[in-house]
């Protein structure tokens, strides 16, 4: 098991984030797929977890004692694929076949489509109950692995999220961490204007969880929040404030990037902004 214990170089993580963003943008361009904005908003969260926190060994993706991460916002799976490839679960060359027929990286993940994908998501509100079941399994069997569930803010409108939120503190100590990628947009509008999510951190606290709010693009803050979450004796929610389309000026906070894919010129412009030569 590899445990980085947050002794990671923040400069290195920043370079990783830029590289992953560029790969994700290229994937969206090549495959002409949507949901780019929400993939870019979750990148720093995935970097902080995969390089700073998860006890995993890419050579043993089915290890029973591994930490688990469920990307419950399955529409952003291009970010997870890019992360897993960079983290060594499969060759980065496979990313070039994203969403190609008969290949292993569907536009939203299927069960076991590629090593490292823990759950098939895409329908919102499924990841937390499933992750809770995994955490419960750890408790029953006396194992010490942790479960991380990354959700979108729009996803928090699903009732199943709050069923799980209400169940968890009754039956678990620590070992279950929710990270909400709070980019303030959902498919057709501002999430708080469509349904009142705010105050989101207070909602989790009211359900018996510990929670913190962080800048979801500050890798230092994310790493500290994750460290706090892993020490907690309660289920823990990290509300990560993010920007949809983060990293590329003409994509940031523009919800059209929930739907459109970038042209070749836009990919070049993004590369320049991300400092990719």
């Amino acid at each position, binding site marked *: 098991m590899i445990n980085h214990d947050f002794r990671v170089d923040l400069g290195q993580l920043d370079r990783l984030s830029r590289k992953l963003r560029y790969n994700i943008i290229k994937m969206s361009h090549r495959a002409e797929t949507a949901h780019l904005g929400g993939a870019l908003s979750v990148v720093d969260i995935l970097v902080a977890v995969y390089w700073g926190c998860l006890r995993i060994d890419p050579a043993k993706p089915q290890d029973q004692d591994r930490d688990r991460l469920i990307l419950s916002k399955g529409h952003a799976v291009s970010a997870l694929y890019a992360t897993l490839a960079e983290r060594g679960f499969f060759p980065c060359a496979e990313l070039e076949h994203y969403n190609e027929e008969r290949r292993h990286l569907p536009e939203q993940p299927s069960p076991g489509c590629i090593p490292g994908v823990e759950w098939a998501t895409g329908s919102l509100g499924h990841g937390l109950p499933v992750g*809770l079941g995994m955490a419960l399994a750890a408790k029953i069997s006396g194992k010490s692995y942790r479960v991380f569930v990354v959700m979108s803010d729009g996803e928090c409108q699903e009732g199943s999220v709050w069923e799980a939120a209400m169940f968890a503190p009754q039956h678990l100590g620590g070992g279950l961490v929710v990270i909400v990628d709070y980019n303030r947009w959902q498919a057709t509008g501002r999430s708080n204007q469509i349904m009142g999510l705010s105050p989101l951190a207070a909602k989790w606290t009211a359900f018996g969880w510990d929670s913190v709010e962080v800048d979801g693009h500050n890798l230092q803050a994310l790493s500290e929040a994750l460290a706090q979450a892993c020490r907690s004796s309660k289920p823990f929610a990290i509300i990560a404030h993010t920007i949809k389309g983060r990293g590329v000026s003409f994509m940031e906070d523009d919800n059209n990037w929930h739907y459109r894919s970038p042209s070749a010129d836009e990919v070049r412009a993004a590369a320049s902004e991300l400092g990719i030569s």
Partner: protein
Amino acid sequence: MRNAFAQEITALAEADPRLVLLMGDIGNRLFDRFKVVASNRFFNCGVAEQNMIGMAAGLASCGFRPICYTITPFVTTRCLEQIRVDVCYHRMPVTIVGTGAGLSYASLGATHHSCEDLAMLRVLPEMTVLAPADSMEVRACLRLALRQGGPVYMRIGKKGEPVIHAEVPEIEVGKCIVMRPGERIALLSAGNMLPTALAVAESLGSSGFRPEVASFPTIKPLDTSYLSDVFRRCSIVATIEEHSVLGGFGGSIAEWRCDQTNPGARLVRFGTGDEFLHVAGEQEFARSHFGLTTGIIAQELLRHLEGERPALKPEPVSALAHFSEQG
């Protein structure tokens, strides 16, 4: 049936440390013994069925064998998407048990009736669907379910149903149990309608017929080898179920029959209709409303039997033509 379920699941949990019981706040004192023998593997999941199914899938992915138990509509249609995505799509070995299926809880109103569950769950890929007829078949089906490597749905009744089998029958997935052999007419029963099917056979016996009766604890996969045989041997095959005639046991046999080059016997389906029951009444009242009584079924079958030629040999028709004819 639910007492048999509780006893059997407790015995199985004692023997198998992978077994975890998740229930949705039902069965007052029913699981007291389970809580003693496997206290850390019993969870009252409250009134939150979507979470219960999702957690079961998560537990199953880590090597456990969860059983989810509550009143049928709440553990089936209420959380159908979790069953479809988290259990079936992922091929998780989760057993879902609906209690009070069909019209068992008739007096509680149509919110508690379950006459659509077989239709909705049998269409899910990977799902095995079981409908035991009595407490003995409940025990047999539960043992079978936990030997399966994938998703299982089992619908059971309430308490106090007649016990038909003298002992726990040996069953296997996809095989029916012929309760009494016969000729010319066969009565195929799903779940708790078996006592009625046997009573109908007695009634028709007094009119000189010798009906065959089979119990189908497995709705999916169907026992197609038996069906091929019985549809060839008989001129009328009747299905009896406490479920809608649309999409359930009879519906699935109608689909199967439609695909046969030479379907043989005529199929007559007895079940609930395409309507909700809006007035008060116990299970027997609800059954009579839908024509699911010994008298009504026997009378209807006699009408068919008397109307047919003694040695009916249907002309071979294409599956499509036959489907149109049936309308």
